[in-house]
């Protein structure tokens, strides 16, 4: 039995995993990263448009603050988010941008003076302030009150991944590339590491650590049409679920991005609309203002995606041999803007569609994009039920996105969660109470169990074909667990997915030395099916509409019954359905009690505690007065103590210079 020891085992080499490893390493703990692919090829790279942080440097961002970012995020989540976690996030995001600036990210910068922009379809001249010249610039994105999205042209994720990846190399953090964790090693109470397969040699080994973190990103590939990279198959989610001791939160919360290119599903950034691009139908009509007069193309993604599908259902889509689609028109932005600020979009249209977006509109239709659900953790990133297991980023549910994530908040979350959870992991490793005694017999047994599972597939003849099962699963998910959901269809999906799951237990694979791609597909499809049925079953049970989860048969958000987080557990390996439990959100502690989001459906059922809390919030605001926004915030929902000490400071802005006020909060 080959065994590798480290302090912190990080499963997943994207932005979150690498930033977390850097944090742990800098605190004196050895960190080792497992990655399916060379880390600079991770899906973090696909974040194009930018990262939200309330720097407020551009004139259209003036007046932005943690408070505005907080409210936008909570409204975006349709009140599903953990508001304390959102507070932790919005306070750290500006620091993350500044840290990345110091690490070399070539953020696009503000140029003082007049510039032409497109707002609401019109050319407008805006004037950037002299004092903002050379600071990090922000662009507009959906669901935000201010221009808050910091960007590097339209390759923000790429630039961030370069810088963070470079720092990981500078810190000599080992990355075991082309390795895959197939099971977590636990003693029933604590996680001790993982059983890992080498994707070059096919060899299995045990990686043992004081703390293990899952930072494997999303699970988009359980759907047929997705913007996600081919490696986003949710295996990190699955290994946590399969322990039986860790829960997945809100897996039915799945985001569909309005502008996947049609039919390939490759993403073109929300920055297209943020920068002034318009959505049009078969008649060349700009239809979003008809549905969303306030936010138009820049309502939150769940709302825009639904409106698009609604419009297509009315027969207003453009017909093509692959089905109907709509059009994203960025021609009004002009060639210079497109070739400089939307360069990747230009390349994608050129190579994959043969379309020149300077001259012609881009065929688009909503595609699966983001997994809001994930490994349920505390605000520290640790599983509340399996000691030593941490998770962060898209793989986790800590839970800052609730039922809909805002554009630009995910790539911001990657680094912020890496910073915060990285500190929590270092604290955990520092604490002598967490010293581990590794049960070697259990390690041996669990490695043997994985080996046995793979051998059975290789020895079986004439069993199920993994690829056929996967294609069937993906079709069910896209057709029946998509943007518009409905009880009967969901029940059918749950039923069919259970059948597929049962069939996947007798999958067979031809032997082959090395990685054996068919074997990879086989063991993954078994795990993916558990996630798919978890998503579908959660969606079936949730008889309301919230954020991206929209039930045609229950179109109202129902806070009275559903202001709660779904937790899914896989109790026994023989189960074909997860066991669901629910965790209530406490309205009485919310800084922003539930209300209307400012876009989308105005109709919802209040939680019984909401009126009282709303009154209390109003009273507290009055008591404290509006002189000091920090004092108001602290009175409503104290959260500072939850942040690692080094990240508790306030954030300087050109409108809130430190020289004019105390530099540290406490």
């Amino acid at each position, binding site marked *: 039995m080959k065994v590798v020891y480290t302090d912190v085992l990080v499963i997943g080499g994207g932005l979150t995993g690498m930033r977390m490893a850097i944090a742990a390493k800098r605190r004196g703990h050895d960190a080792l990263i497992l990655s399916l692919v060379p880390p600079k*090829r991770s899906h973090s790279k696909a974040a194009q448009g930018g990262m939200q942080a309330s720097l407020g440097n551009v004139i259209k961002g003036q007046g932005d603050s943690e408070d505005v970012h907080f409210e936008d995020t909570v409204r975006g989540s349709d009140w599903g988010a953990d508001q304390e976690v959102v507070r932790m996030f919005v306070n750290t995001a500006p620091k993350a941008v500044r840290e990345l600036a110091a690490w*070399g990210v070539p953020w696009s910068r503000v140029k003082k003076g007049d510039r032409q922009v497109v707002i609401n379809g019109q050319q407008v001249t805006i004037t950037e302030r002299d004092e903002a010249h050379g600071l990090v610039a922000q662009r507009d994105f959906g669901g935000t009150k201010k221009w808050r999205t910091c960007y590097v042209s339209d390759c923000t994720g790429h630039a961030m991944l370069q810088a963070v990846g470079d720092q990981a*190399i500078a810190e000599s953090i080992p990355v075991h590339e082309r390795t895959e964790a197939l099971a977590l090693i636990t003693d029933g109470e604590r996680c001790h590491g993982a059983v890992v397969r080498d994707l070059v040699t096919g060899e299995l080994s045990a990686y043992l650590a004081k703390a293990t973190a899952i930072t494997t990103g999303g699970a988009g590939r359980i759907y047929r049409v997705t913007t996600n990279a081919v490696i986003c198959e949710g295996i990190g989610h699955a290994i946590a679920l399969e322990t039986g001791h860790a829960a997945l939160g809100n897996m039915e919360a799945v985001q569909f991005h309005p502008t996947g290119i049609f039919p390939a599903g490759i993403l073109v950034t929300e920055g297209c609309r943020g920068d002034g691009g318009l959505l049009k139908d078969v008649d060349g009509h700009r239809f979003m203002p008809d549905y969303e007069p306030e936010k138009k193309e820049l309502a939150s993604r769940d709302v825009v995606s639904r409106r698009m599908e609604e419009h297509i259902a009315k027969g207003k889509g453009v017909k093509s041999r692959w089905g109907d689609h709509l059009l994203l028109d960025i021609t009004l932005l002009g060639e210079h803007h497109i070739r400089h600020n939307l360069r990747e979009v230009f390349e994608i249209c050129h190579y994959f569609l043969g379309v020149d977006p300077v001259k012609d509109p881009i065929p688009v239709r909503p595609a699966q994009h983001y997994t809001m659900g994930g490994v349920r953790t505390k605000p520290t990133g640790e599983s509340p039920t399996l000691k030593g297991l941490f998770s962060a980023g898209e793989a986790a549910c800590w839970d800052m996105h609730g039922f809909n994530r805002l554009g630009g908040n995910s790539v911001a979350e990657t680094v912020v969660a890496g910073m915060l959870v990285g500190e929590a992991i270092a604290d955990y490793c520092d604490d002598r109470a967490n010293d581990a005694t590794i049960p070697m017999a259990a390690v041996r047994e669990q490695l043997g169990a994985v080996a046995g599972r793979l051998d059975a597939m290789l020895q079986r003849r004439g069993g199920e074909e993994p690829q056929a099962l996967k294609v069937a699963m993906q079709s069910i998910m896209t057709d029946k667990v998509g943007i518009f959901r409905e009880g009967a269809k969901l029940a059918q999906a749950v039923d069919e997915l259970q059948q597929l799951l049962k069939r996947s237990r007798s999958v067979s694979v031809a032997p082959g030395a090395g990685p054996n791609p068919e074997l990879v597909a086989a063991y993954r499809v078994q795990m993916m099916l558990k996630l798919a049925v978890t998503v579908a079953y959660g969606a079936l049970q949730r008889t309301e509409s919230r954020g991206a989860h929209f039930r045609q048969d229950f179109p109202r958000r129902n806070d009275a019954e559903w202001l709660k987080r779904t937790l899914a557990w896989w109790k026994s390996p023989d189960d074909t359905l997860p066991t669901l439990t629910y965790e209530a959100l406490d309205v009485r502690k919310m800084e922003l009690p539930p209300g209307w989001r400012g876009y989308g459906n105005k109709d919802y059922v209040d939680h019984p505690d909401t009126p009282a809390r709303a009154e209390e919030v109003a009273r507290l605001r009055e008591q404290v007065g509006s002189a000091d926004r920090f004092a108001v915030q602290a009175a409503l929902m104290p959260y500072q103590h939850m942040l690692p000490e080094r990240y508790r400071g*306030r954030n300087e802005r050109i409108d809130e210079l430190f020289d004019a006020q105390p530099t540290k909060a406490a």
Partner: protein
Amino acid sequence: MNHTTTAVADAPAATETARRLTFNILRYNPQEKGSAPRMQTYHLDEAVGMTLFIALNELREKQDPSLQFDFVCRAGICGSCAMMVNGRPTLACRTLTRDVGPEITLAPLPVFELIGDLSVNTGKWMRGTSERLEAWLHGDAKPRDIDRLEERMEPALAEQLNELDRCVECGCCVASCGTARMRADFVGAVGIAKIARFRLDPRDKRTDDDYYELIGTDDGVFGCMSLLACHDVCPKDLPLQTQIAFLRRKMAGKGWA
């Protein structure tokens, strides 16, 4: 404007008979005892808008489950899928069969360690080169206070830096490089471009003396024979020719000083 015709430009009509594509693929699995490199032929009906990503996956799903290759983003941004397509290194995911068929020869990138079939270990090579060239930003020894305003930068400079930062480490430049075939330790255009990128960045405190130590050798910028295939094949159109020439002049100046 008639928007209905713009869905997929140049798509042949649905009634047109699909072309029959022939793939000649280099097969070799070093993990398998007795495996020897050989060419294997496959046939596939072309579809509208078919890329090598779609074609190779279809071959693996329907004809040969053992075929090894690498794709991640399938959108031309991650650099995973570089391979030799009809003798030229390029990103497979954004190569349309329309442009390279009907007979398509696929081979793994040379120079890099072979994992199997079309899959090579570019990750290991890139990490090694980054370590050797210390290809990370060497900022101030004292970390900046990230609560405070970020350091300012001229907008035009930020754009220039991004231009050099766009490298996706796909390995095409190395695979096309004459020197890389002869000198195992040559840093390649990717390595030189990285140094050029940090040299341009005022946040990096290294001097030309420091850079000379890293690339002022025949394994560095003086190894380049100016064949410049790297410049021609770079999928991201990085200005490699200018950067190599510029750095060579700067480094030569250091060497003579």
